[in-house]
């Protein structure tokens, strides 16, 4: 008895009566996390400030001066680019999201464990391929290979407005670009979806199964509703990447400054990022300001997409996973 008393005392001391090492660790960690939080905000503010400052001349110079120097009015120049950016990205999402969700579900709920792991690694590997490789693949392999499909679609599905018009002879269309972008954003959407699908509570999966749900019904009742917010975030991350993708689009797409909904013809809109990459080397004077201003527009679009995503996720927060 007497020998245990001092031990109890000293353990009481280390339990928090005397401040010791752990508090230093706490402080360091707090400093680090606060510091990095502030750093992110500062960097973001600096980027925004840079964009706004350098974009300013393009937005304020009056159209007459611009015209005198051989440049068109800013908004009529940037809006088609913004359209092309969003249009190609939407195409990519339409193609990638169903496939990504399908693969993610297969990995999380259908495939035997071995196969699931292998598939997971393969998908992650796809994310490691540099975008210039995708661009080269798109221009040398995919675009030529898709020419027959362009012809077939315009011939037989031409009644569908997006597929109407004369098919492109090179395959370097918004259609092909969207496919390349879809392949590029597939890994991130898939692996994020897989993560949230795996986290769906077993509790609710079993509840669904015990009610006599088939596996697919169980997924619809207990997995997809739970994963909703996660799926939206995954899609938005994919969309962000598709909107900002420069290299692959610059290589694959042969675009002009125009608004055009037909996805299979030789006349395609260009995207902001690709246009900056392609035009910057030869730009000088006000043109540079205009290009930077278009970058600012892309920044705003991406920001708006993220806010939209947050709003969608928050809207049904009271029904979300945890209870």
């Amino acid at each position, binding site marked *: 008895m007497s020998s245990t008393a001092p031990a109890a005392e000293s353990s009481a001391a280390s339990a928090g009566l005397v401040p010791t090492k752990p508090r230093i660790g706490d402080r360091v960690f707090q400093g680090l996390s606060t510091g990095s939080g502030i750093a992110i905000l500062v960097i973001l503010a600096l980027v925004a400030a840079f964009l706004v400052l350098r974009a300013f001349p393009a937005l304020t110079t009056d159209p007459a001066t611009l015209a005198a120097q051989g440049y068109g009015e800013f908004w009529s120049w940037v809006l088609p680019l913004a359209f092309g950016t969003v249009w190609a990205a939407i195409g990519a999402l339409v193609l990638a999201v169903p496939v990504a969700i399908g693969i993610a579900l297969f990995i999380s709920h259908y495939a035997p*464990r071995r196969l699931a792991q292998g598939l997971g690694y393969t998908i992650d590997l796809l994310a490691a391929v540099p975008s210039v490789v995708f661009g080269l693949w798109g221009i040398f392999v995919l675009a030529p290979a898709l020419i027959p499909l362009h012809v077939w679609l315009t011939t037989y599905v031409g009644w569908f407005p997006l597929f109407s018009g004369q098919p492109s002879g090179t395959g370097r269309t918004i259609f092909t670009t969207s496919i390349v972008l879809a392949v590029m954003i597939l890994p991130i959407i898939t692996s994020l979806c897989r993560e949230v699908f795996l986290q769906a*509570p077993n*509790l*609710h999966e*079993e*509840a*669904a*199964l*015990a*009610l*006599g*749900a*088939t596996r697919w*019904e169980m997924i619809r*009742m*207990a997995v997809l*509703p*739970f994963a*909703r917010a996660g799926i939206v975030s995954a899609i938005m991350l994919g969309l962000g990447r598709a909107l900002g993708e420069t290299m692959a689009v610059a290589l694959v797409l042969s675009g002009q400054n125009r608004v055009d909904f037909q996805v299979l013809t030789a006349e395609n809109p260009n995207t902001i990022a690709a246009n900056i990459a392609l035009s910057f080397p030869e730009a000088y004077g006000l043109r540079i300001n205009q290009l930077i201003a278009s970058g600012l527009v892309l920044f705003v679009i991406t920001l708006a997409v993220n806010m939209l995503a947050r709003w969608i996720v928050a809207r*049904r927060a*009271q*029904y*979300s*996973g*945890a*209870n």
Partner: protein
Amino acid sequence: MSKRIEAKNLDIYYGKFKAVEDVSMVIEPRAVTAFIGPSGCGKSTFLRSLNRMHEVINGAYVEGELLLDGHDLYGPGVDPVNVRRQIGMVFQRPNPFPTMSIKENVLAGLRLNNKRMPGREQDEVCEKALRGANLWEEVKNRLDLPGSGLSGGQQQRLCIARAIAMAPDVLLMDEPCSALDPISTLAIEDLIQELKANYTIVIVTHNMQQAARVSDSTAFFNIAGTGAPGKLIEMGPTEQIFSTPEKQETENYITGRFG
């Protein structure tokens, strides 16, 4: 409604591990049967084999015969999905679907069966099930709010309503009160007494007073040691099990003496 279950020489496995060995028993309709025994002796495992929920786990399977009014539930060509529609289950932790309203939760199982039930009929079924689970008065004004907003006891009764909305033959409950406070527990015990008029009820409980209070017959499971399979030691009318059990092992357990 309310059918008799007969297990014949049931062996239950998790992959190579045999968790339950050679259980034979008859579970009578319109009665409450309680499973008691030390933790890890296979009560949950055996219960989950009764509605084929056991095989949901990777590598898990069952050997032997399990008859529901004479039909082998593990026979060739029997779809486990149909078995689960006839044999409802309530889990240890209340698990209403968090993304559904109270009403949607009650109707969740029925929606699987016939997708197009007229609105009037939905309302009726929903009210009947909630009344059956003694929950109607508490939730009738907030049927469209999420089920996760209810208290633990209410959530568990919601799960019972969800199960009985399917009009099952049998209701299985795995320690349905172990996550609840005493008052909610009493509410569920009362409910079980009412439900036994219409259903075959099987309840797993680690609480012997509860078994004594609610059940008509009691089955005592035990395990020889870790890694050994659980076995049914003795089954009989609850009064007899708790007063004059046949096996010494049973007596040791109910009097709190082990070994």
